[in-house]
């Protein structure tokens, strides 16, 4: 079934990127202002759901050609590694570090391992939401 709503399709092409940008913003803002991995992940999956509504599952699979279940695994892996990495430096599990670095192009930037952990959360949330929606959508 291919949806033929031109207005919806055209609009979603534009809105999709805005939502994605907003979700990325939410994600990176998380440590300083409201937001974070959870809401960011939900927003990203919201954007993809919009694509699903405007087009169909086949098209979305072509656009995003990987299995969302892998995303869950990758997210969990990142989170556990971030949390467990601190053990290598002889500090307790889940000890975060952060500092300011001078990075070309971005200038003085704060880097925080908590963001890595949040990235894991982000992936898991995206993976889970899309797995559920997609599985339910595909079932007869």
């Amino acid at each position, binding site marked *: 079934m291919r949806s033929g709503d031109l207005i919806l399709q055209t609009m979603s092409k534009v809105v999709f990127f805005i939502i994605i940008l907003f979700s990325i913003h939410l994600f990176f803002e998380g440590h300083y*202002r409201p937001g974070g991995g959870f809401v960011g992940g939900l927003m990203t999956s919201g954007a993809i759901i919009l694509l699903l509504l405007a087009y169909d599952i086949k098209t979305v699979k072509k656009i995003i050609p990987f299995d969302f279940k892998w995303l869950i695994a990758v997210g969990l892996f990142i989170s556990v590694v971030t949390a467990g990495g601190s053990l290598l430096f002889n500090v307790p599990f889940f000890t975060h570090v952060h500092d300011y670095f001078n990075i070309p192009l971005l200038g003085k930037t704060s880097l925080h391992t908590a963001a890595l952990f949040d990235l894991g959360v982000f992936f898991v949330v995206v993976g889970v939401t899309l*797995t559920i929606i997609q599985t339910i959508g595909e079932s007869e």
Partner: protein
Amino acid sequence: MSVLHIAILSPFLFAIIVPYIYKRLRQIHTGWFVLLLPIILFIYFLQFLPQVKEGEGIVQSVSWIPSLNVDFTAKIDGLGLLFALLITGIGSLVVLYSIYYLSKDQEQLNAFYVYLLLFLGAMLGVVLSDNLIVLYTFWEFTSFSSFFLIGYWHHRERSRYGAQKSMLITVFGGLSLLGGIILLYIMTGTFSIQEMVANTSTIINHPLFLPAMIFILLGAFSKSAQFPFYIWLPDAMEAPTPVSAYLHSATMVKAGIYLVARMTPIFAYDANGYWVWLVGGVGIFTLFWGSFNAIKQTDLKGILAYSTVSQLGLIMSLLGVGAGAVHFGNDNQLFIVATIAAVFHLINHATFKGSLFMVAGIIDHETGTRDIRRLGGLMTIMPVSFTIAFIGTFSMAGIPPFNGFLSKEMFFTGMLRVVKMDIFRFDSIGFLFPVIAWIGSVFTFVYSMILLWKTFGGQVQREKLPKTPHEAPFGMLISPVILASLVVIFGFFPNILSDRIIAPAVETIMPMFAIDEIHISHWHGFQPELYMTIGVIIIGILLYLTLGKWTRIYQLFPNKLTLNQLYDVLLPSLETGSNMFIRTHMTGYIRTYLAYIFTFFIAILSFTMWSKHAFHFESTNLADIGLYEVLLFLAVIIGTVTILASKSRLTSIIALGAVGYAVSLFFVLFRAPDLALTQLVIETISVALFLLCFYFLPRNFHLEKTRFKLTNALISVGVGLVVTLIAISSYSTKLFPSISQYYVDHTYDPAGGENMVNVILVDFRGFDTLFEISVLAIAGLGVYGLIKLRLARRKEG
């Protein structure tokens, strides 16, 4: 590990290799190998006789669980040695008998001898352990091995029934014994019997004295088939006859006797005489009841089973009466005669009852039946068996010159002296003891005669017998002949036992008295005991000759009123009862279970609140209420009422969404932006999922209104009320200041963030988050699995 320990444990070790012997050496009967062990053990225990006679106990200890005061302490004293000799001696004879009784080719001999050896070892452990926990361990081992032996022919329904019955009753008693042991430990702080005997004064003045005594007696009575626990013994006759001869006449049923004898120095000192009355009273009643019921039996082993019950009652009553001696001090040693009689009769009973069981087995083996209505006239066909049975039954009936006569005479002496006891109201109702004892002895005489003459007297009824009767093979006769010779030897020369075995045993039972000399004499003048015995014989003969006239009285006792019937009704009704109980409250409806859970929730919490006076309301730390809050509150209320009252499910879903969005507005109002964001998105997704479920509801699903149920309404109002009250009370009683100031102070400086919620989530308490995303992952994969994996449909297709 001393030699003594190895001796006790050797049957267990030997039991391990029995199956190998059975497999490797099929042409030789396995029993021949097994036979060696009890003989060696018997000889080994014989060598302790001189030491024990001198009054020196042998104590060997191996630590087992030292932290719990449980050590495997083996102790040989007069009583233990007497039992050890009985167990190994009769054990050897029984094994010898079983070699000829059980066929090499048709029976599972490995199983039989493994069980028998387990039992042998367990019995040795029971009688030679000084530590009560070790004793209890072996005690249960005897129950289990006896269970296996009774159910040896497990293809028979009656065997399984008998095994189960004996298991249930003896394990009931065993557990009660364990309770008594624990109570004794609480009182004295030790599991060792010797140390308990030394602490008698602590025990008898302790409030737990009576419960401990009753628990231990329950254990002893159920094992020794006393009233009302005797019912398992007649059904245990389904076991092979060697087992009946060994377990259910000579050894296992005497474990209870052993326990009572062993505990006498601990419990008998009590000034109220509970021990004397309980042990003596139950024993004497069992004596009467067992002998009375034995007469109506038609099965040889049935008669013998009831006779065992009755004789055990006799020994038990003697132990009880003998314990009365401790209340008289040294000047009145007359009651010790009862204890001596108990020990003597214990030995005698083992000899004659063992031989009688073996004869019953021989008759069964050679004629094919044990029913006395079909037997008769075997006297000339089986002369040796007849002689053995003659000696056994006459000894059992208490007729001179056999050993049963001597112990019965002493039994009467003991019982007659009860009347002279002027304590515990024995002077008023104590006369019942000799009277019941005498009546019981008359019945004993009658069933002994029935046993002998109905089997061997009269005419042979060849047409009723499955096999042509003939004398048993020589090997089968060895054991009963030995036992019958012992009956005669002990009958003529009872004093060969008195110094070596009986005196040390009595000294163990009554350590407070010096036993100078025991002389068992045949003739002690024209005493009342003699007239009683003459009376027993005359009345007994009369009763036997008029058997047909008065046995009708047994029909007066309908079968429905027996204890067996009670057991048979009680057990299934327990089953149906628990079934009914489960069926009535486990309805299978989730609604019922929720009702239970919530009702208990309300009951427990409101009771706690009420009993602790926990309700507390304080308005000082309440914030002001703003307009927006009131409006939102109204919106939530309207949404909730709509959910409950709406006719269609769609309305409910939308109302639920409205409540969810209102909650996110509350988050906004109460300044929780992260929560508000998340709540908005999550509410959207869940409403979408609800709608999805709604869309796929079956077509014929009624769009009916929620039915109103008063119970549901009451329960829900109750839950709401209780939770509200608890919330108010807990808010009004703030005991500590919040720890949130720490987060406020440290969010930026070590944690390096400004959004405190997020910092708590990923940094301060990131552990929770790690597992919450794991929960999400599991939920996602679960949905995937539920939808994709459809085994049932795949099978159909």
